[in-house]
C-alpha cells in the first residue's frame, strides 16, 4: 500500500483521482512539462535559485504569528496564523508563480498564460513574469474583475495583459477554459502557469510541491516554538493550493488533525455554494478526475461564494484522495460566517485577511472554542484582504 506522501504515481494518479483528460493537442506539452520538472528537481541549482527568490524576493520564511487577542476572544485552543499574507504580492500564490516562471525559462518559452479568480494568482504571475522578462496574459472572469478591481490594476501596472472572460458564469471556471484555449493555440511558445492544484497531470503535483514551502516552514517553526507539532491545522480550499501546500508536509503525521474549509456560500443548495468535496461527486473537469459540482448530465454546475478565489466547482485530485482516505476532514463555512471572521480578525488582530482565508479563520475560531488552552491550532492565512476591502464594505453597507 502506497503511503499518502508518495502520490502521484507515474501516471499522475492520486489513488483513483487525477490523471489527464485533455485534448490531444496538449499532451506533448504536458509530457514536456513533466520531463522538465523532473530535471529541475534533479538539478540542485534550481532549488538554490528558488530558495534565494523565496528569501530575498518573497520575504520568506513567513512568520508563524500567535493571534493572542483572537485566542482570548474564542476562549480555547491557541490560534496561530501562518502569515502568507505577508508575502510579496500578498498571498501564497507567489510561491507557485515563481517556481513555474523558472520552469518556463528552463523550457525556453517566452510567454506565460494564467487564469485568475480573486486576482492573486494573476498578480503573482504578472509579478514573476516581470521579474523574468516574460510576456504575461491573464484571463479573468468579468464578474471577478468587478469585485477584485484593485488586482486588475496591479496586473496591468506589472505589464500583464488582462483579458476579460464573458462566457458562462464569468468567473474562475470560465477563465480556466479560456486560458486552456489560448494554450491549445500557443503551446509551442507559451507555458500555462496554472494557479492551483487542479488540472491535468503534472500540474497538481507541481503546484503542491511549490506550495509545500508553507507546510515545511510551519513544521519547523512549530518544532522550534513548541518543541512539538500542532494539534490541528486549518486551511481554506477552493482549488486547494494553499491547503495542499500546508497539509502535504504533515500528511504522514497522524497526530496532526487537518481540516479543509470550503465555501458554503448562501446555502447548501446547488448553485448557492462552492463546497465541492462536501456536496459534489467524482467526475471530470478541467483535465482532471476529482470531485466536481455538476448536474446529472455531467454539466458543470454554477457555484457561488462571496470569495472569488473559492468560487470554483472543482477541486484538486489530491484533496479527493485525502477526503476518501479520511486523512483530511473537509467542511464548509458560509459567506456570512466568513465575513464575521474577517471583521473579528480585522478588529482584534489588526489584520485584514483575504475573504478566502477568512473561511479558514472562521472554522478555526469555532474549533478553538471547543478545545483546551494547551492545544495549538495553526490557520493558513493564505492572503491579505486589501483586495476585498471594497467588496466587504459594499456588502456590509459601510459608507465613506
Amino acid at each position, binding site marked *: 500500500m502506497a503511503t499518502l506522501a508518495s502520490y502521484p504515481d507515474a*501516471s499522475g494518479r492520486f489513488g483513483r483521482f487525477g*490523471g*489527464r*483528460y*485533455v*485534448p*490531444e*493537442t*496538449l*499532451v*506533448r*506539452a504536458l509530457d514536456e512539462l513533466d520531463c522538465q520538472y523532473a530535471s529541475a528537481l534533479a538539478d540542485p541549482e534550481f532549488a538554490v535559485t528558488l530558495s534565494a527568490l523565496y528569501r530575498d524576493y518573497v520575504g520568506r520564511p513567513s512568520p508563524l504569528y500567535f493571534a493572542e487577542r483572537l485566542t482570548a476572544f474564542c476562549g480555547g485552543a491557541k490560534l496561530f496564523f501562518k502569515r502568507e499574507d505577508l508575502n510579496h504580492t500578498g498571498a501564497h500564490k507567489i510561491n507557485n508563480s515563481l517556481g513555474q516562471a523558472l520552469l518556463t525559462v528552463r523550457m525556453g518559452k517566452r510567454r506565460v498564460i494564467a487564469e485568475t479568480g480573486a486576482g492573486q494568482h494573476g498578480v503573482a504571475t504578472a509579478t514573476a513574469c516581470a521579474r523574468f522578462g516574460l510576456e504575461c496574459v491573464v484571463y479573468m472572469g468579468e464578474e471577478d474583475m468587478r469585485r477584485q478591481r484593485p488586482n486588475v490594476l496591479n496586473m496591468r501596472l506589472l505589464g500583464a495583459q488582462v483579458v476579460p472572460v464573458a*462566457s*458562462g458564469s464569468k468567473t474562475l*471556471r470560465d477563465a480556466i*477554459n479560456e486560458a*486552456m*484555449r489560448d494554450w*491549445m*493555440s500557443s*503551446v*509551442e511558445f507559451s507555458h500555462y502557469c496554472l494557479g492551483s492544484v487542479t488540472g491535468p497531470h503534472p500540474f497538481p503535483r507541481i503546484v503542491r510541491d511549490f506550495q509545500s514551502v508553507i507546510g515545511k516552514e510551519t513544521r519547523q517553526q512549530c518544532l522550534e516554538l513548541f518543541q512539538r507539532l500542532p494539534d490541528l491545522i486549518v486551511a481554506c480550499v477552493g482549488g486547494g493550493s494553499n491547503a495542499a501546500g500546508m497539509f502535504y508536509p504533515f500528511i504522514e503525521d497522524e497526530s496532526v488533525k487537518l481540516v479543509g474549509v470550503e465555501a458554503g456560500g448562501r446555502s447548501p443548495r446547488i448553485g448557492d455554494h462552492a463546497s465541492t468535496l462536501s456536496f459534489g461527486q467524482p*467526475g*471530470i*473537469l*478541467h*483535465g482532471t*478526475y476529482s470531485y*466536481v459540482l*455538476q*448536474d*446529472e*448530465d*455531467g*454539466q*458543470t454546475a454554477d457555484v457561488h461564494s462571496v470569495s472569488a478565489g473559492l468560487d470554483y466547482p472543482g477541486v484538486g485530485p489530491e484533496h479527493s484522495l485525502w477526503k476518501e482516505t479520511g486523512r483530511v476532514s473537509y467542511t464548509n463555512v458560509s459567506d456570512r460566517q466568513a465575513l464575521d471572521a474577517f471583521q473579528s480578525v480585522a478588529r482584534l488582530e489588526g489584520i485584514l485577511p483575504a475573504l478566502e482565508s477568512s473561511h479558514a479563520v472562521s472554522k478555526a475560531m469555532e474549533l478553538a472554542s471547543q478545545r483546551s488552552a494547551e492545544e495549538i491550532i495553526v490557520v493558513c492565512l493564505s492572503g491579505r484582504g486589501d483586495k476585498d476591502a471594497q467588496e466587504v464594505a459594499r456588502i456590509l453597507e459601510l459608507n465613506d
Partner: protein
Amino acid sequence: MTRIQELFNELRANGRKAFMPFITAGDPDLAFTQDLLQTLADAGSSLIEVGVPYSDPIADGPVIQASYTRTLQRGTRSADVLQCLGAIAPRLRTPLVLMVSYAIVYRRGLQDFVRQAKQAGVAGLIVPDLPFEEAGALRGECASHGIDWIPLITPTTPRQRTIEIAEVAQGFLYYVSVAGITGERRELPKELVDNLAWLRTQTALPVCVGFGISRPEHVRLLAPVVDGLIVGSAIVRQVATVGEKPRPQVLREIREYVSGLMAAIASAK
C-alpha cells in the same frame, strides 16, 4: 464490418472522398436538429458528426462554444440528444458520429452511455478530451457494442505516438489541422499537406481532416491527400442565424454551402 468501414471502402473503390459536416445537437432546438440532419443527409454528406453540448468545451472556439451554451440554457441534455438521434437515425442512410466530452460519458457510466448511443444509431464515437492512454475502458465498451472509436491526432502529436494511436483507432483517424481550437481559419498551416501525406503512409485507416476548414480552396488543397473533410464552425455559424431568418431559408443556405464544398471535393485531383 462496421457502417463506417463499409462507407470508406465504397468511397475508396469509387475514388471519392468523404464530406462530413459537424452540427451541435439541439441548436437552436432538437426539432431543427432533425431537419438539419435530414437536409445534410439529402445533400449527400458521407457522415455527419453530431456534437453533444457541454458546459466547458476547452477544445472549441467561440462559435461552437456559443452554440453549446445556447442549447444548454434551453435545457438540452445528452439523454435528449440521444433520444432525438434515435428517432431520426433509422431514416438516414448517413452514419452518425457522436462528439462528446468525457465528463458526460463518465457521469452516465461508460457502459450505459455506449449502449444508449448504439441504440440511438450512433456509428462512431469521438471523445476530444480523452487521450488514448486514458481511453482503454471506453474503447473496450465501444468494441463490444460495435461502435467505432475515432481518436484525434494533432500537429503536436509526436510521430511515434501517432502510430500508436493509429493502431487502436477504428473507423477513421481524425487529423486536427491546426494546434488550436475549432473555428474557421483563413489559412491552414503550410506543413499540413506533408503531415497528412505522411500519416497516410503509416495507416490503412481512412484519414479525415478537420478544424479550421471552411472554404472551397481549403477543400481543393486537402482533398487529394485525405479520405475525408470535416467542416464544423462554418455550418454552426449559419445555424446561429435561425431567429433572424426563417428556418427553411437557413436550411436552404446550409444546403447550398455544403453543395459548394462537395463540388470542390469532387473537382479536386
